[in-house]
């Protein structure tokens, strides 16, 4: 770990350090390949989450460093891994870029506005997202057919970041409940956006309205249940069974 920290402060690499470290894919990439990765992100809209996008990242380097040809497949494998591993890295980098997009939301934004901004971030690459999510859901080293963890992590990170940006002050169980509901709202909205992009924002608004009424209903049920349980506890005590 000390050697890694040392490398991060090395002047050759410090300019490539990402500005935030809260949500970074694990493991973080070394600076040179990380730089190419960030250059590849804008190419996703035209080339998709493909090795081609990674290979063409060297074409977008500053003119003094730019290559005349894309990287060879061997070079992409050497830097990012073979096959879909490289694509996974690109997808994770793009998702992290989405988190940075959330962080750049204007101050005093509401949760609805933050999630809306995140859905807008999907629009340039919307047609590539189903394949990207399927790659993430395909386990790299597992006997299972599907791995739900990347999807859950994706929604959880967005919910957590949105709460952080809007300075959510929830505590204890409410902290988890708030993030859980936001993650569910965002996941449903994003899935809706993949099939019906035009109505995605209305759907998001309806989910927010529904969740607020759901929350109040849940609180009332909780309160009523506590009354009932206390009543029964009193009855059992007074019956002399214990």
């Amino acid at each position, binding site marked *: 770990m000390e050697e890694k920290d040392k490398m991060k402060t090395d002047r050759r690499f410090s300019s490539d350090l990402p500005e935030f470290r809260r949500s970074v894919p694990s493991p973080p990439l070394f600076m*040179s390949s990380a730089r190419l990765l960030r250059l590849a992100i804008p190419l996703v809209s035209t080339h998709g989450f493909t090795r081609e996008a990674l290979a063409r990242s060297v074409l977008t380097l500053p003119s003094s460093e730019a290559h005349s040809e894309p990287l060879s497949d061997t070079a992409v494998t050497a830097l990012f891994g073979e096959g879909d591993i490289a694509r996974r890295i690109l997808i994770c980098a793009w998702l992290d870029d989405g988190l940075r997009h959330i962080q750049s939301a204007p101050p005093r934004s509401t949760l609805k506005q933050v999630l809306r901004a995140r859905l807008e971030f999907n629009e340039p690459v919307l047609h590539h997202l189903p394949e990207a999510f399927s790659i993430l859901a395909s386990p790299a080293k597992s006997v299972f057919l599907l791995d739900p963890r990347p999807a859950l992590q994706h929604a959880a990170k967005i919910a957590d970041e949105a709460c952080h940006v809007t300075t959510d002050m929830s505590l204890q169980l409410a902290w988890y409940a708030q993030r859980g509901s936001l993650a569910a709202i965002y996941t449903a909205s994003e899935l809706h956006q993949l099939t019906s992009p035009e109505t995605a924002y209305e759907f998001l608004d309806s989910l927010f309205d529904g969740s607020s009424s759901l929350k109040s209903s849940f609180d009332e049920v909780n309160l009523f249940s506590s009354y009932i349980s206390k009543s029964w506890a009193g009855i059992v005590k007074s019956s002399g069974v214990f």
Partner: protein
Amino acid sequence: MLSLSRSLRSSLPKAARLNCPRYITTQSSSTTPSSSETTTSRTASFGFKTVPEESKESLVKDVFDSVASSYDLMNDATSLGVHRLWKDSYVSALKPGRKGPMRCIDVAGGTGDIALRILDYARENYADRETSVAVVDINAQMLKEGFRRFKKTMYHNTPQISFHEANAQALPSEVFPDNTFDLYTIAFGIRNCTSIPSVLEEAHRVLKPGGTFACLEFSRVNNPLLSTLYDQYSFTMIPLLGTILAGDRDSYQYLVESIRKFPPQPEFAKMIREAGFATGDDVDGGAWQDMWGGIACVHKGVKL
């Protein structure tokens, strides 16, 4: 074709000639980056011993001269044939010829193991008959073995293969100009080089921008149980096999010692970056890929 650069060999300074070790893991003490001697003369490690740099080069040469004829047999015996799997995996991961013909240079590849695999892979998988490999080795005996091996193949007397006697730390620029090659491979050879940074610098020089450096080498085993078993096997069986099969215990004693002197994976990855290459992250699967728990390891870098 065997194009021995004898004039170059004789013109090169003697000290410079012995740098690049062949991938025979016999004796060849290479100076590790961390070695620092208090004496004024430059020294290098030769297994667990420390010798003057000039002496190491001649020692390495003598070692490989003596083992050249039984090199393949000893590799099979000491690794129980596993080295073939490592080399197959090494070459197949590079996928030579996938996106068209490649100019490759295989350094310390005297007997042509890797070169043959590269050409076969490109031909069998991508019908590529234009990919070429320049085999470079400091030892003429090893190159002769490689030349003899290739005479049995379809690549003999074709532009796809050439043999060069040269020093990996100082590749002659007339024969190996800057920005020439798409792929630089060195398998079980860099460990024996006197100055690993010099080898890496030369690799960076001869590779084109976007070219790949790939090094297969014995490395550090981190699993304690496997490490214990590996040490036991290395220090008892391998020298014994060297005595029985090759009649040369000392060479193979050097082999196992030199493996322990080679930098561990993160350190070698750092050296590759310091030479100017871009690598993946400092984890297994990033800048390097361990094979068999780290017994062998493939380090890769890209010249950007």
